[in-house]
């Protein structure tokens, strides 16, 4: 059996944990004592799995907390209750603070060549309503949800179907499940750690009462009618929303469970009394009794934070709110932390290599052209005037906190060098000028690049205005065209845009174990090569095959990464892909490492002062384990 580092690590940490666990005396949660005494809840020993996840706070440099308190946060829409699942971050496997994949809900995982995965559950683990969480919940999902043609008309999710072959799922015993494929599926385990994880387990005891294979369909008629849906499958799917978190009756494994049904303006998340994590003194997590999510319009969130109406807030706040937030700090006793945004680039230009006009296509595909444009941007001025100098002037590449960071990639084409830019443009042959001093295109028109924006951020427009100033000096005219997200995408997909502005790669802090798919033409929504991405996504039915060598090489490397069995091979694939991007500048990054303001109440402890802010990986504050946050008084 060839075990990967992951399972080895998991097992060794498991041994360590079980030693502590046997010595660990569990303490009853103070705020649940009454319920336990009244017999409404079993004692803590019977609620926590026999081998719980133990949060070693001291090792993280954090304090052991105490139970109690209410954490208030603001959301802009009722459907944002789903963020509780993102932030709760109870995952089968999750990232730790160093972004290693470690078991969380699972006790351990055995991985054989990325083909056979054996998941070991924690014995005695229970759903938030007390139902046992066992291998049956995995089997129920696979057989009765994913493979039922009424509940899932298009079959199991794509990451569980490799080359047309669905997983083979077996229940070994009550706490062991095995997933296997004949070819390797390296994305299987990392998928579990996503901000929005694929829930390959469902609370089967609860959901079976809505499944026509388990109950008489006729007995569901009344409920189907009451819910206003049209079939039992629709009823089942409505109840079955582990991610949307909008069904208060649905049991969960997250630290807090929603107790309020929509529509409402205030959602109460109560502690999950069966949560599987405990601290090293034997107190069950989460520390905080209740999370209250108040719905407020997006525009008021900064004003409400300024008035001290939230205890922990990042959504709805943006860089431009920092002054407002700082102003209210002393009056309401909160702190504004500035977390570095973990995108590869905050603002980046995407030349559309799939533009349908042959002249533009030729120009945009000319590496010298992209380098000239990149050298024609004064990143220092942009950083100083728009980001208070807090961002980093960098090409679109991984951030310094990533183990794969390379300074030469970050500096690639990032310096302001008008002379070189002009020389490159001359070399391409764009030497004719019009009466205003702008260069002319081969067809005699002025070289005017229309940069389209999604029209959602005024920051992008401000940056583009500064870019247009220096581009003028290399004879390139820039026209900013605000549009709408959907329209922008559709125009790009059709090859009608010349250039768009967006943020860089989502994951700027990737390690070699995370998929480099974003770097290769695998997705249509990459505005630089939508047709190549579509070609891959539709398995060649639509779009165009990549027809330049470097893009083809990226595809090969992405495949090599998927098939790599050890870390050094994965690293090699990553490094070459990063080098190709640094050399080609497919995406022209402007600045990276902008800051996300995070408002934290003065008495809320264990919230890191600085942490990478990213949706994936990490689920915003999820990776900091909010169940370990507590109020000091």
């Amino acid at each position, binding site marked *: 059996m060839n075990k990967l580092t992951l399972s080895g690590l998991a097992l060794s940490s498991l041994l360590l944990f079980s030693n502590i666990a046997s010595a660990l005396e569990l303490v009853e949660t103070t705020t649940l004592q009454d319920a336990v005494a009244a017999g409404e809840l079993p004692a803590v020993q019977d609620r926590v799995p026999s081998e719980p996840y133990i949060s070693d706070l001291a090792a993280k440099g954090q304090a052991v907390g105490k139970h109690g308190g209410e954490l*208030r946060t603001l959301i802009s*829409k*009722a*459907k944002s209750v789903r963020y509780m699942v993102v932030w709760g971050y109870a995952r089968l496997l999750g990232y730790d603070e160093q972004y290693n994949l470690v078991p969380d809900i699972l006790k351990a995982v055995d991985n054989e060549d990325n083909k056979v995965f054996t998941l070991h559950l924690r014995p005695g683990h229970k759903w938030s309503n007390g139902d046992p969480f066992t291998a049956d919940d995995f089997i129920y999902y696979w057989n009765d949800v994913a493979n039922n043609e009424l*509940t*899932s*008309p*298009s*079959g199991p*999710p*794509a*990451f569980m179907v490799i080359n047309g072959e669905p997983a083979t799922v077996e229940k070994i015993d009550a706490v062991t499940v095995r997933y296997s494929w004949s070819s390797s599926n390296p994305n299987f385990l990392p998928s579990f750690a*996503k901000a*929005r994880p*694929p829930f390959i387990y469902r609370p089967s005891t609860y959901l079976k009462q809505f499944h026509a294979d388990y109950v008489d369909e006729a007995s569901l008629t009344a409920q189907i009618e009451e819910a*206003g*849906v*049209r*079939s039992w*499958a*629709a009823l089942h*799917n*409505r109840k079955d929303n582990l*991610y949307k978190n*909008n069904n208060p009756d649905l049991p969960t494994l997250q630290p807090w469970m929603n107790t*309020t049904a*929509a*529509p*409402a*303006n*205030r959602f*109460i998340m109560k502690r999950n009394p069966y949560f599987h994590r405990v601290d090293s003194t034997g107190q069950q997590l989460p520390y905080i009794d209740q999370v*209250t999510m*108040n*719905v*407020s*319009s997006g*525009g*008021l969130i900064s*004003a*409400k934070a300024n*008035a001290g*109406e939230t205890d922990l807030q990042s959504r709805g706040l943006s860089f431009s709110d920092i002054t407002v937030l700082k102003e209210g700090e002393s009056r309401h006793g909160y702190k504004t932390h500035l977390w570095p945004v973990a995108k590869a680039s905050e603002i980046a230009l995407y030349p559309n290599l799939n533009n349908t006009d042959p002249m533009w296509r030729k120009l945009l595909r000319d590496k010298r052209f992209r380098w000239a444009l990149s050298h024609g941007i004064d990143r220092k001025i942009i950083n100083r005037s728009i980001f208070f100098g807090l961002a980093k002037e960098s090409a679109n590449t991984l951030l310094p906190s990533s183990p794969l960071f390379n300074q030469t990639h970050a500096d690639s084409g990032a310096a302001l060098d008008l002379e070189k830019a002009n020389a490159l443009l001359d070399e391409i042959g764009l030497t004719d000028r019009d009466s205003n001093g702008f260069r002319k295109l081969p067809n005699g028109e002025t070289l005017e690049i229309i940069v389209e924006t999604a029209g959602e951020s005024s920051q992008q427009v401000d940056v583009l205005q500064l870019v247009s100033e220096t581009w003028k000096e290399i004879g390139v005219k820039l026209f900013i065209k605000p549009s709408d997200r*959907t*329209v922008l*995408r*559709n125009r790009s997909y059709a090859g009608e845009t010349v250039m768009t502005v967006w943020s860089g790669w*989502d994951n700027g802090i990737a390690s070699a174990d995370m998929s480099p798919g974003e770097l290769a033409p695998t*997705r*249509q*929504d990459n505005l630089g090569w939508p047709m190549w991405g579509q070609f891959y996504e539709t398995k060649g039915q639509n779009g165009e095959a990549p027809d330049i060598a470097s893009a083809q090489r990226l595809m090969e490397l992405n495949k090599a990464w998927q098939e790599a069995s050890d870390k050094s091979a994965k690293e090699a694939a990553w490094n070459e892909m990063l080098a190709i991007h640094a050399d080609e500048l497919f995406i022209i990054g402007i600045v990276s490492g902008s800051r996300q303001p995070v408002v934290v109440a003065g008495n809320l402890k264990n919230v890191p002062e600085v942490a990478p802010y990213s*949706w*994936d990986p990490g689920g915003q504050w999820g990776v900091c384990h909010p169940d370990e946050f507590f109020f000091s008084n």
Partner: protein
Amino acid sequence: MARYLFFRLLTMFGTLLVISFLMFVVIKLPPGDFLSNQIAELRSQGESASIEKAEFLRQQYGLDRPFFAQYFSWLGVWPGPNGFSGLLQGDWGWSFEYERPVDQVVGDTLSLTILVNLATILFIYIVALPIGIYSATRQYSIGDYGITLVGYIGLATPNFLLGLIMLFYANRWFGVSIGGLMDPVFEDQPWSLAKIWSVLAHLVVPTIVIGTSGTAAMIRRLRANLLDELQKQYYTTAKSKGLRPTKALVKYPLRMALNPFVADIGNLLPSMVSGSVLVSLVLSLPTVGPILLDALSSQDQYLAGFILMFTAVLTVIGMMVSDVLLAILDPRIRFSAR
């Protein structure tokens, strides 16, 4: 009169039919539909796992059917995926965004919406009537100029800006929580004196903000109408006969000047539901306005369609009521209608 009413009802029905069609066309104009937008969104976030679910809904609610099939089955004159079930049968449709039937989504917010807008209308009448009379009877006095100035400022200030400033200071000086219609702690509690007080305290800012421009407009209109009447001979006669000034004013010219108020009912009814969208959005009021805006931008077609249709029905009814009332109140209109 009966004949008149009958034809009015007939044209009302025709108007609504045309409105419903135009509305549906406009809602469907942007490319894609709610689910295809959602699928694109999910895909861009790399969340392909949930796309299957969206596809499921798409079939379930017939979004894959052609435009006219969708329109007619929404109206209820064409069998949908679930037989004849549309507006005519009292099925308002399904909201994709909220994942519940439309009447449930709208029903909950309707009462608060009417509360806010009713408070505003009362505010407008209570403030505008006396001020309008005052500035008409004392034309070109310092008071008149002062009120005119304030009125113009009220008309010209963008009310969302005014709203934000007032919210900020209401919080700082009086400790009223920012936005919403009550303090968040009362949201899920039963009604109590403290809760009512909280609602009243939170009503002040929206009422003033939504009401300022309406008040200013009403003052100007009343003043102009009243000035017209005050120059007429019957008023001079009444005064010269020794009628007390108040009585002379209230009994004749004021009644004439009230016509625009009655004519306004046609606009008031729909604005009880759909008025104040922008302000509600900025001030985070739990009213129909923000729901409508969200529904339109996310192409939640049945929800948007229902709210617009409901407003259209109210407008048409309001117009009819004000026409009939005017005809009853003012003989001149009754005669000229022939």
